[in-house]
């Protein structure tokens, strides 16, 4: 395949940045999107140019590190992670536009790499269970109905990639935050800190400068893990009932 890549290049956070076009030849349809970028970076390195910086880690669709806004969509044309996107989703001769996630709460570090530690701080604000859980308990020792376990697990599959923020016209982190709140709100281990968790995580989400939710549904449509909007409704219930009944005056 012959391609033209239109890539966002930005030296550092204070650099203005801009697009640079790179022609690329000899790309196989079986390559993943990140492998295609590896080919580009090898060529750039050989020429003595600065390679394009992008985030990645597992390359198996489980860590959430890869990002990239490809041709107007987070993680590109398929509803999957960028590492699981393959070049067969593109055609010979295509121009592919690659941009970083755009959000005030995700500042650009370099090129396509953004700082997603705002997500970490939301988790630190309450996305944990601080009771001592001891060793691994026997299976079924804490009775949890399968329907609930499944639903909590679905919420827990969120890999924190930030595609929901990238997709949202308001750069809102509601889908991510709601998945993290939901996963613990449904399980017995999460009950002790339930109200504090909802209040604190949402306060942190606001503080980080994410936008509000207009319920457009873009987040869920683009989420590589299929996290559903019912989590946002649950988060709203958790929050409204927490502010009405918690001890935080």
């Amino acid at each position, binding site marked *: 395949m012959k391609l033209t890549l239109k890539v966002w290049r930005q030296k550092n956070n204070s650099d203005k940045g801009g697009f640079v076009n790179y022609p690329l030849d000899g790309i196989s349809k079986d390559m993943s999107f990140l492998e295609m970028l590896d080919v580009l970076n090898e060529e750039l390195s050989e020429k003595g140019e600065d390679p394009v910086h992008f985030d990645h880690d597992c390359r198996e669709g489980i860590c959430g590190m890869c990002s990239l806004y490809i041709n107007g969509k987070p993680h590109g044309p398929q509803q999957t992670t960028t590492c699981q996107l393959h070049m067969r989703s593109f055609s010979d001769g295509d121009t592919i536009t690659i941009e970083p996630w755009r959000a*005030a709460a995700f500042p650009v570090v370099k090129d396509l790499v953004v700082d997603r530690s705002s997500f970490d701080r939301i988790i630190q604000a309450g996305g944990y269970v601080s009771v001592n859980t001891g060793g691994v308990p026997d299976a079924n020792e804490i009775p949890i109905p399968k329907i609930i376990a499944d639903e909590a697990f679905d919420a827990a599959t969120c890999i924190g990639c930030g595609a929901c923020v990238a997709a949202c016209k*308001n750069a809102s982190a509601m889908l991510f935050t709601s998945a993290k709140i939901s996963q613990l709100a449904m399980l017995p281990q999460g009950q002790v800190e339930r109200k504090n968790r909802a209040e604190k995580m949402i306060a942190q989400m606001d503080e980080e*400068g994410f936008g*509000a939710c207009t319920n457009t549904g873009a987040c869920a449509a683009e989420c590589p893990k299929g996290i559903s909007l019912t989590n946002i409704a649950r988060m709203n*219930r958790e929050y409204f009932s927490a502010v009405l009944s918690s001890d935080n005056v």
Partner: protein
Amino acid sequence: MSWVTKTLSSTLGRKLIMALTGLFLILFLTGHVSGNLLLFKNDGGEAFNIYAKFMTTNPAVKLLSWLTYLSIIGHVIYSIILSRKNKSARPIGYSESKASTNSSAASRNMGVLGTVILLFIVVHMQSFWAQMHWGSIPTVTYGGEEYKDLYSIVYAAFQVEWMVALYVIAMIFLGVHLSHGFASAFQTLGLNHKKYTPAIEGLGKFYCIVIPALFASMPLYIYFTQS
């Protein structure tokens, strides 16, 4: 900050206000359209004028009107606050966006749709509401009692082409606003469940077509049949 102000200045608290005021306005529109159906009665406006007097004098209705004014003002103020916050959450936009593949145009343009509705509300209140309250309106007498002849004002207004056009266009914008807003408000309130969400969405689709269409049919009816 007390817990109340803290909650109402959080994004979720602000969205709660948007949803509650929006839903109250939806209730208001239902009442408003039902009463105005009296315009279709071929009695020279008698039933409509009697109804208009009741609506401006009854104390319970007065309370509801104040709630409606408050809802409009609250809805608009919070839409500005939220839109500004949302804008600042993405200071640099994308050079290419395929948002149409993941969300409806209505949901992405609530602010623009609402602004047109607001302009309409201003013209509408100036033409009828302000006249009824402070204007010099001719009076009519039914059964020995004197009534303001609001019907004649409505009748005259809807002989003017641009007024009729404004009403019809504004109602299309209202319909599109509600095609997203109706179900969205329930989601904001946390009411999303496979048992009743399909019904809410269905009702929303019905409401966003039928209510604006009924409103729009009034100026059209008067313009085309009464001249």
